[in-house]
């Protein structure tokens, strides 16, 4: 059977249009139980990065991915200080998985997309367990308030965030 080779991924570059980067970081809308996720994206030596594009994909509060009233997808860009912000809801558990938010990172200098996952607490989740034990804590968001979480992403060096190949 014919099998095509996926197109080679290439870097997003530094000039992803602002118009595309903005306006899609509020997944919650008028929903209740809103949670705010903020964080800073840094490179080697801890330098913050401007205009990094982050996209997230998550289940709804009931653990569903096909809710017509909750798209589950959002996009944010970092500012000049490296900070991003999402407004969303806490996802429910899905069979075999703990509540989590999938993150995709696109940027100049990244020839391929980087994938990571944010968890709400330590758990027996098979994706969290796929990470080296020493790195697991860096995939667990830190509560900074009743409805606010902090999830920093270090691309390389130091407290490097664990990333997934697929």
């Amino acid at each position, binding site marked *: 059977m*014919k*099998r*095509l*080779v*996926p*197109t*080679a*991924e*290439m*870097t*997003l*570059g*530094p*000039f*992803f*249009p*602002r*118009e*595309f980067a903005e306006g*899609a970081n509020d997944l919650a809308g008028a929903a209740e139980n809103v949670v705010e996720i903020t964080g800073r994206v840094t*490179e*080697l*030596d801890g330098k913050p*990065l*401007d*205009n990094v594009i982050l*996209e997230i*994909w998550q*289940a709804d509060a009931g653990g569903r*991915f*096909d809710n017509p009233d909750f*798209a*589950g*997808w959002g996009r944010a860009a970092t500012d000049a200080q490296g900070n991003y912000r999402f407004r969303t809801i806490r996802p429910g558990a*899905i*069979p*075999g*998985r703990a509540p*989590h938010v999938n993150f*995709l990172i696109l*940027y*100049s*200098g990244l*020839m*391929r997309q*980087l994938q990571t996952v944010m968890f709400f607490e330590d758990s027996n989740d*098979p*994706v969290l367990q*796929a*990470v*080296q034990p020493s*790195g697991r804590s860096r995939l667990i968001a830190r509560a900074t308030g009743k409805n606010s979480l902090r999830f920093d992403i270090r*691309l*390389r060096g130091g407290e*490097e965030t*664990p*990333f*997934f*190949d*697929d």
Partner: protein
Amino acid sequence: MAVVIARRDPLTQAQGVEPGYAQTARRWPSQPLARRPHTASELSGPQPVARLLPLVRGDLAGHGARRALGQLIRLRVRVVDEDGAPLPGTVVEAWHCNAAGKYIHPNDTHDAPADPNFYGAARLVAGDSGLVELRTIKPGAYPVPDTNGWWRPPHVHFSVWGRVWLSRLVTQMFFPGEPLNEADAILNAIHDPGARGRCIARLVPSTTNELIYDYQLVVRGRKGAPGMP
């Protein structure tokens, strides 16, 4: 039918830290990427994205007194999966610099002139045969700051969703016959000559003043039973 995502082939995909592209050594992770099982979370995705994001500008070239400077081109881009099946309804974002090599982005400090009649960003949705068409002008080449004479060849950036979360594709399309293609650190990060060649559009013979280019974007994923290798 479920979507299956096979692992990336290191010959047809870049591997991270690339010679001649210094930023990759500051940003690509130093640790090996972890392998994870694929569950419903990775093998689902937002549908339809066109409901979430407004479609904008299928024509970047303009007309008459509002015409953008540069060679008029038409890009005919077909989006398919690894089975060759078209992906009607998938969203495609495209962006590129103007004919002088300047982006609309405020972070672009290159001293090339802006073109008041050119705004280089489009968001399109694929039609029934997976086709998107973009009327625009051919982008210029431009120097990369803080490098030893690296000039990017003319290229168009694409971002495509595909069927599921793991099929997301962000890439760049190049033009045939460009001398700068030979030394570009980004294009040449793809080591397989065939895969690299597929990142270069094909010029279609035409008799008008508009150059037509055909291109194919293959997103990851094929149909198969879950759990198959």
